[in-house]
């Protein structure tokens, strides 16, 4: 493998030593650029009680370009599509190399607390979220129960 930058080693060490509450990010044993992530659904959100699995990959030019993050667990959310792709500005044009794995994951957790149907990725979900929020929230809770409470 290409030599692993110190930046990644350093971030990994810190994630292990001072984990972020509600978030676990463990590097893959064979690939130090790939992290197995689990985010717990925030309290008082329709995702409460769920454990959401994500994958996070640090591309070759990280930190000059953003990590690639994707939900693996199915989730009913206007800014996350059925393939798990996330619409979040800091993962796109608002990325800064001063951001880190931990700040990215915190932002994703915050996105679960505050869905933004005005900047949707999953159009049908966003539509319902705008027209009938309570039904959308019911769906989100149902999906959380069905897909994110396996164990």
């Amino acid at each position: 493998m290409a030599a692993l930058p110190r930046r990644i080693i350093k971030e990994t060490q810190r994630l292990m030593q001072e984990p972020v509450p509600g978030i676990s990010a463990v590097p893959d044993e064979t690939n130090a650029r790939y992290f197995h992530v689990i985010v717990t659904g925030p309290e008082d959100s329709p995702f409460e009680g769920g454990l959401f699995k994500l994958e996070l990959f640090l591309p070759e030019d990280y930190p000059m370009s953003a990590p690639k993050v994707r939900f693996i667990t199915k989730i009913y959310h206007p800014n996350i599509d059925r393939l798990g792709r996330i619409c979040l500005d800091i993962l796109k044009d608002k990325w800064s190399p001063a951001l880190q794995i931990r700040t990215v994951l915190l932002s994703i957790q915050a996105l679960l607390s505050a869905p933004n149907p005005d900047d949707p990725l999953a159009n049908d979900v966003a539509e319902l979220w705008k027209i009938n929020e309570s039904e959308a929230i019911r769906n989100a809770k149902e999906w959380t129960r069905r897909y994110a409470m396996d164990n």
Partner: protein
Amino acid sequence: MGNCLCKNTASHNGRNSSYNTRSSSMAMAKNSYDHPLDLTTQAEPPPQFKFPTLPHIDKLVLEILGVIGLLVDSEQEPPPAMLKLHNIADKEDGWIQVVSSMVNVIPMFNPLGASVITLMLDDCPLPSKDSVLRLSQVFQLSQDHKKTKISATQQRNICVVLGCIAERLAGPSSIAILSDATLDFLLSNLEEDVDPHVILFSLIALEKFAQTSENKITIKNRLLKKDPNPLLSLEKWANQTKYVQRQVGFSAQWCLDNLFLIEGRDYSHNTVDLTGINVMLNTKDVSEYLKISPNGLEARCDAYSFESVRCTFQVDEGVWYYETLIITSGVMQIGWATKDSTFLNHEGYGIGDDQFSLAFDGCRRLIWHNARSERVFNIPCWREGDILGCLLDLNKQEIIFSINGAPLKTCKQLFEKARSGFFAAASFMSFQQCLFNFGNVPFKYPPKDRTFQTFNDHATLNPEEKIVLPRHLFLKELRKFSVREDSCELCFDRKATVKLLPCDHRGFCQECSKQLIECPMCRAPIQEMSIDSNANST
């Protein structure tokens, strides 16, 4: 490619941009439809027993198998059959039927068969744990499989499916799916009298399950209980000339060195004989999932991404030649690259996909340069055991590939951008493997029309550079690293010496600063960079 495109509402339905999100597998995806593949596959009798499914789903699966080798442009729309399949698989029953169809109809000897299963599964919605458990009931997995009526092809396909699901559902679901019955099925396949294709993909499935550490411990313990451990006899196949067995040997050895360690067994890198080997595949210049043999000359990919590697020796002038033994007949792009060629494995780009590399893929019979392909006519697809010759003539600025000594057309296009600094290089789609000869043993088909040099006669490697360390050992070494207090906040590699103006934020090195447009801390546009007088000068 495949980005969210939030700002671009035109493509906001998520479908047209989703095709190559997970990059993976989409290595095959570059450049326009082409002529049909000449997949002269061995005829197989239809299986006696078929898992229940619907004829139109079988048809869609076969249609995708037929068309996928022709899909060579990642910007291209997915084939309509793929969309139909995706929609069917969106419901639980549909997903199970799609998987059953794949198990029934994907033939053993199609070189793209196994990778197409992973590609289709990757494109289908992720199943719930319940769907997967239901699926294992449909398959009735157990160790008595040998006695049942399902064919070796179906068993192979089931193993491919299990491996793919294990990887995608890594974590608690993967633990749940690795039931006793599934584990019995996979482990009982590791016997020497089982069809080697089934052994191979059982091993790969176990490897993918072992990505979840609890599973790894379970599998390891079960293997240790078997006396002797079946992997120990299978790893002896690593030098077989029967190519399926050879793959089994490679995979068994890799598992023993990387995943299912046995106390008292020495690592292969400590026991391998490296006498006379002066050039290798470079373990410091390879994308992260490619597996390299302990002697540094054989490579294999079992990931769903397009994995690439360069060799250790660089050539700048003269005429050079190396050979590759084709061990699997699927998609590999083998040829020449400079250091400027980048390995974008997750985007499906590899050797031949930029201006700094040129490669031949004998499965689809395409010469690749700058992500464009040119078809080579009048030759069959490559087969296991073929020798690909790669000649680089820097005097005449020519590259000539040959198959078993028969030269293909002369290529010159690489030299528009690259004049020196060339390396042997290759990219691998999932489940592909080949063996390089840089001249440590005689060539099978040395070029006769010109004198040439071989890497092995001119290169040297010191003993340390020759060690192909298993990655878990390599990562262990890395973690011992620490960084200095005054290092750059962005890379932690170099000293922080730069201050950004006008915002006055500091803590960056020169190299990183050069890549910045705005301040990483406050996003203020950078007008000037000055030497930070507060940084200690040492």
